[in-house]
């Protein structure tokens, strides 16, 4: 086998292209520096989560032994198990709906001709510019009127339509060659069939990206989950994390770091596996 067989050669985005040796060195150098800079805070906090508070206050950030109290304390301080379940439910259900709604809307915007499309799209885009903070109070009242306070539905509902998702899907769908739609028209597929059979699989890449993103956004949300819940039955991890933080007096950094790690582990795992999936499921553009 030659050295540049499939495994060892640097290939640009799906093609068979190779990179020069010096290019490789530069690439790895840049990436390593970036990885250290970006990864350091995370590693640092993981390290912190194993360090006793007294050490932290005195500027010792590297655990001298495997100190688990911070984790024990965090779990004792807050029902993290419950919060994680809630976050997962809200994250998964919310993400699924966001994906569905965005796909449907984007599909209409790209593949279905109808009057008023432009205006609708512009309005949708404009909603992205409205600061969420000014919507919270009114939405709280709406949700309350619907009797959805302290429910998953109440947590999820206001966020299931997302400009972000619609935009990204629209972008992606516009890249689907028109011949594919035409071939489906000729084959007699209905709009919905084309949507399900061609569009959905072909935007899988975007779906994965968006699913990760939506899940993370939901997972990391603080204000709305706090406002729309009054007790722990439906609350999410971020509230748990925030609760660890002492607003008065000394914060228990170690415990907070442990909490931050606990709340970040599921999302980091998601990114890790999502990334894998993303790499595998990368659908390619059209042919010829």
């Amino acid at each position: 086998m030659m050295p540049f067989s499939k495994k060892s050669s640097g290939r640009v985005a799906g093609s068979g292209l190779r990179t020069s040796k010096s290019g490789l060195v530069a690439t790895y150098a840049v990436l390593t520096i970036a990885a250290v800079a970006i990864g350091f805070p995370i590693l640092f906090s993981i390290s912190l989560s194993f360090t006793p508070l007294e050490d932290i206050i005195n500027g010792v950030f590297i655990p001298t032994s495997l100190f688990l109290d911070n984790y024990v304390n965090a779990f004792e301080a807050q029902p993290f198990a419950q919060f994680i379940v809630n976050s997962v439910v809200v994250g998964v259900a919310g993400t699924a709906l966001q994906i569905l709604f965005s796909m449907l809307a984007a599909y209409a915007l790209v593949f279905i001709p109808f009057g008023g499309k432009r205006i609708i799209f512009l309005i949708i885009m404009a909603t992205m510019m409205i600061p969420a903070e000014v919507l919270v109070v009114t939405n709280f009242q709406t949700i309350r009127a619907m009797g959805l306070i302290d429910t998953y539905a109440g947590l999820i509902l206001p966020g299931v339509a997302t400009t972000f998702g619609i935009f990204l899907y629209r972008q992606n769908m516009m890249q689907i060659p028109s011949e594919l739609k035409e071939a489906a028209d000729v084959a007699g597929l209905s709009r919905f069939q084309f949507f399900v059979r061609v569009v959905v699989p072909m935007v899988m890449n975007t779906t994965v990206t968006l699913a990760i993103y939506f899940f993370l956004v939901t997972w990391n949300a603080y204000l709305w989950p706090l406002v729309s819940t009054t007790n722990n039955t439906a609350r999410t991890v971020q509230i748990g994390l925030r609760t660890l933080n002492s607003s008065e007096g000394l914060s228990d950094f170690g415990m907070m770091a442990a909490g931050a790690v606990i709340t970040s582990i599921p999302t980091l795992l998601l990114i890790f596996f999502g990334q894998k999936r993303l790499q595998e499921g990368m659908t390619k553009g059209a042919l010829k």
Partner: protein
Amino acid sequence: MALRSKRSLAGAEAAGAAAVAVPPKEAPGGKRSLAGWVYLLPSIAIFAIFVIYPFARTIITSFFATTPAGGLTQFIGLSNFITLFTDPLYTQAIANTLIYVVLTVPLTIVIALLLAVLTAQDLPGMGIFRTIFSATMGISVAAAAVFWNLLFNANSGVLNRIIEFFGGEGVGWLIDQNFALVSVSIISIWMNLGMAYLILLGAIKSIDGSYYESVEIVGGGFWYRLRRVTVPLISPSLFFVLTITVIGAFQSFGLIDMLTQGGPNNATVLLIYRLYRDAFVNFRIGSASAQGVILFVVIFVISYIQTKLTEDKVTYQ
């Protein structure tokens, strides 16, 4: 955003790069379709109830004096707006915000693009890099604030220790009013990098390989390839990242709230943070509403300008 212009933000016209066609390319049976609305309905309904309606209320509220609980007490016209614009701290917040946007947005995008381009190659170990670079997406603001606070701590922070270890002089990252906004920007870039990176990576990975093969044969180097092929071909995604990063920058209050609370000396008061304080701490709902409207307008104008500036450069296939 281009409500008026033919070409709009997000290239509403992009559906027709083919829209050159003057009698628009209408496939038969096209225009009378109601189906479009059916597909749009779920999103539109949600937007109407949870975004447009409350924003309409916000607009109304901005013309009123309010009780702490948000009740409208008296119509005061533009008074809320006038008060804000005569408040030097508010104008400073505008300035801070603009600086913050300028500090964070280009760097976030440039770094994300560079990393995405480098890691889009199928080289060994890329999986790890990709994971690291997108990892910050998984860190909540609350968690990030915890980490960075300890890194940036002027007296005992790790960063200063490292600097001092190499013989430099420590910096009052978050307490020096000349540094605080920069420091917050660094964190913000760190936090937003993940998402921008992931979107751009996805976009680059879905570029058809033959485009690269073609440039490879021609002999364009890294930058040529980036400039002539990658950037134009991912321009829609790039534009999108730009848009969300700008909007995100205008709307990022979590870091400020948890790290500096606007300080030192108002150096890190951003519009959104000010809005948050007035709405949720000071309970001046009328003023907060007015700020919401102003912020919307500011973002709108910036997005519009940005669209205008980039529209020729965004191509949709």
